[in-house]
């Protein structure tokens, strides 16, 4: 086999070297196609994976009992109370969850500029409902709650975006110790920043672009907006609870906890429909994350229509350029057949040429794609990127297309009757 194969491969390579310009152009074309393909896959697929990973930091083991986010004016929803907190604690006690955390939400305004701030009052173990590290400073402690009755300002912690809104351009560490005065429910509250949480979302810009005012989000869905100012739970004393979170010790415990909470607040509908019924309900953050991951993927498919078209075009181009190249070489193939070359040898030679060109293109395309992504990133603030882990499949696809683009026409060309091909030319 190798004795037949080697001369055929050699002929293919010789031919590539004989027409360096043509070889270079073919290689560049497949290089550009590969570069574009890898960029597109990296952008949509990689971005989607990143978003899923980031979103998981909003608490993979957390369950929430809270009012469903359904706008239905006139529907009466009794708010949660401290008695509900006790009921939950009693119901899940034997499962020994990591934490059962109540919280109160309020809208306040900053003094003096009237800027709106979202306040969340929660006990120290609230941080356990999230999987977000501190960017600077510390989280609230039990000692901070005692400060409510003291003469000094009350300790508060900020989400990174709240810090960025309050003090634009300031690093998280520089926000520590800054005073913040807000008016909430008519009374002023003096605060001092003791900690700033880091932003779990790497691509915040994508989440904010189409909801830059975050107007359509509700208080309890403000997780994504990440603009909360956290106070000790007692700071908003007297207000009803806006939510109670239960944190499982292990991911496997989430289902058992859900069943227990369903005993207290039976599910009103299955799946996504549960989000469409007003009233207090049990929500598992993991479900929400899956929904978000799933819908960003579909959204990415529709939103990245442009990119998908580009990839398809690249594929079509690679496949048909082989075809155009081979149509042009019917004569040469006929001559080779007259010289005694076997059909299979001719087909193999063309296939080798196509593969080598595609491989050359792949080798060229990877650095080209990397440079292209860097260039695009520099031009526009958009997470263009080039990930080597997608390069292999993309190169494989390009290679396959290159082969498809050369094998099929090569077989057809090899099957042509040499006498007819050459005869057509002479007449």
């Amino acid at each position, binding site marked *: 086999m190798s004795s037949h194969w080697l001369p055929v491969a050699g002929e293919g390579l010789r031919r590539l070297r004989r027409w360096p310009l043509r070889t270079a*152009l073919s290689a560049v*074309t497949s290089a550009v196609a590969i570069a574009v393909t890898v960029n597109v896959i990296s952008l949509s697929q990689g971005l989607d994976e990143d978003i899923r990973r980031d979103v998981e930091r909003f608490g993979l083991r957390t369950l929430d009992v809270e009012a469903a986010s*359904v*706008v239905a004016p006139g529907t009466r929803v009794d708010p949660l109370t401290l008695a509900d907190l006790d009921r939950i604690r009693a119901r899940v006690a034997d499962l020994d969850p990591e934490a059962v955390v109540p919280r109160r939400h309020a809208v306040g305004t900053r003094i003096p500029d009237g800027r709106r701030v979202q306040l969340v009052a929660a006990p120290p173990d609230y941080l356990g409902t999230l999987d977000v590290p501190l960017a600077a400073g510390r989280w609230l402690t039990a000692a901070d709650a005692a400060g409510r009755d003291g003469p000094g300002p009350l300790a508060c912690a900020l989400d990174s975006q709240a810090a960025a809104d309050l003090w634009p351009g300031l690093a998280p560490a520089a926000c520590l110790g800054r005073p913040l005065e807000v008016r909430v429910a008519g009374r002023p509250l003096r605060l001092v920043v003791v900690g700033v949480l880091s932003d779990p979302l790497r691509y915040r810009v994508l989440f904010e672009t189409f909801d830059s005012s975050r107007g359509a989000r509700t208080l309890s869905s403000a997780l994504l907006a990440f603009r909360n100012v956290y106070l000790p739970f007692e700071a908003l004393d007297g207000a009803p*609870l806006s939510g109670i979170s239960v944190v499982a010790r292990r991911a496997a415990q989430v289902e058992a906890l859900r069943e227990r909470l369903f005993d207290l607040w039976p599910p009103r509908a299955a799946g996504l429909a549960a989000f469409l019924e007003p009233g207090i309900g049990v929500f598992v953050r993991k479900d929400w994350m899956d929904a978000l991951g799933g819908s960003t993927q579909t959204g990415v498919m*529709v939103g990245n229509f442009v990119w998908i078209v580009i990839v398809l075009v690249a594929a079509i181009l690679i496949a048909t*350029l082989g075809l155009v190249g081979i149509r042009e070489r019917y004569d040469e193939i006929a001559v080779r057949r007259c010289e005694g070359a076997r059909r299979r040898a001719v087909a193999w030679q063309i296939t080798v040429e196509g593969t080598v060109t595609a491989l050359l293109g792949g080798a060229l395309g990877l650095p080209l794609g990397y440079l292209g992504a860097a260039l695009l990133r520099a*031009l526009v603030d958009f997470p263009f990127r080039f990930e080597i882990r997608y390069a292999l499949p993309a190169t494989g696809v390009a290679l396959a297309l290159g082969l498809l683009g050369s094998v099929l026409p090569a077989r057809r060309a090899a099957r042509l009757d040499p006498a007819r091909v050459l005869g057509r030319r002479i007449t």
Partner: protein
Amino acid sequence: MPWTELLRASVSRLLRRPVASLLLLQGTVWGVAVAIFPAAVLEGTRQSALTRGAAVGAGRLALVADPTAAPRTPLTVADLTRVERALAGLGSAPPPVAGVRRLGSGRARPDAPEVTLLAGTPRTLEARGLTLAAGRWPGPDDPPGACVVEARVAEALGRPALGPGDALRLPGHPEPLLVVGVARARDPALLRTDDLGFDTGHGLYESVARPFLLAMGVPSVRDGWKRSDACVYVALGDAGELDWILARLDPPLVLRGAEAARDALGAAGRAVVALHPLVLPVLLGDEVDRFGRVSWAMFLACLVMGAVVIAHVGLLSVLERTRELALRRVEGATRPGVAAQILVEGGVLAVVGSLLGFALGAGLAELRVRLEPVHGFDWVFPTGHALAAALVALGVGLLAALLPAWRAVRLDPVEGLADE
């Protein structure tokens, strides 16, 4: 050979082998199409938001108490005044702002559209984007129960028509009503559009847009009455609670308006959700620059890809013809004559490819617009981008033809033919 003759020869050569020509052309066609269509959609939608903003409802703003706030404090007439004050300073004229309370709803028959009775403040019709076909809004001199009906109320109640002066009784509502005004029917596309600007009747709305919005933390909203065209409005008499505060702004002011209204209500301790079209106002704001730049970067990338392919194809098409050119030289064609022929052919390829590319680009733009569940998406032909793409195609096509043409011309015809 005169130019016209060369042109005719090139075109007939293209037409003689349509499949081969199409293969040759497709690089240019795809390159040009992919380069122009994102710009076509972005610019078309932007223009649609600017010029048809009111028609597609891009300026609507609805404020409603946050359903997840505890305690949930309903909006009041005092809140309406706060919003009016906050929005008054935004544009040249104070926009229409209204408060609405839902009093009830019912159906005349099980299969009839649901009729909703609402109490509203005087600018309700304007704030809802409605105009009167006849009559007026109930005044202080009108008897209690004076009302304005929307266009489909007559149908919903099984009456042939309703006009000012007609008496009315609504299912589930004991008080008799008297029609004093009738609103014009709304555009069906607008009737399907929700406050977030999504076309609720679109094939991808339920399967793609709605789950995505829910996952992003946008609440589900029960406001089917807004899209029914079967509402009955009476004047809001007392200074009681409001379910909704509605406004119509200039579309470019919507994002700022929503923020200002939420700030004003936040200062009064009110947690509200502000619903407004999510996409079109963004296209009119600063954020669009980012999309403009992304689109521009894409245009550039597509041009590069297209250019490489055009060069490749151009080169192949001439290389293929070394022998034919040699023959022409033997037949007595001069070198400049052969060069002119190749250049004209390259030019014709680029122009025809660009024209087909325009058509394909328009088709892709139309497909993209149809895939979008947001109402108001549109496309226009992007003349600037198209011209740039066509010029690049022409330049690259000619350059790609020039090099082999130069070689072919220099080639001794005897050698060119003896190749075989």
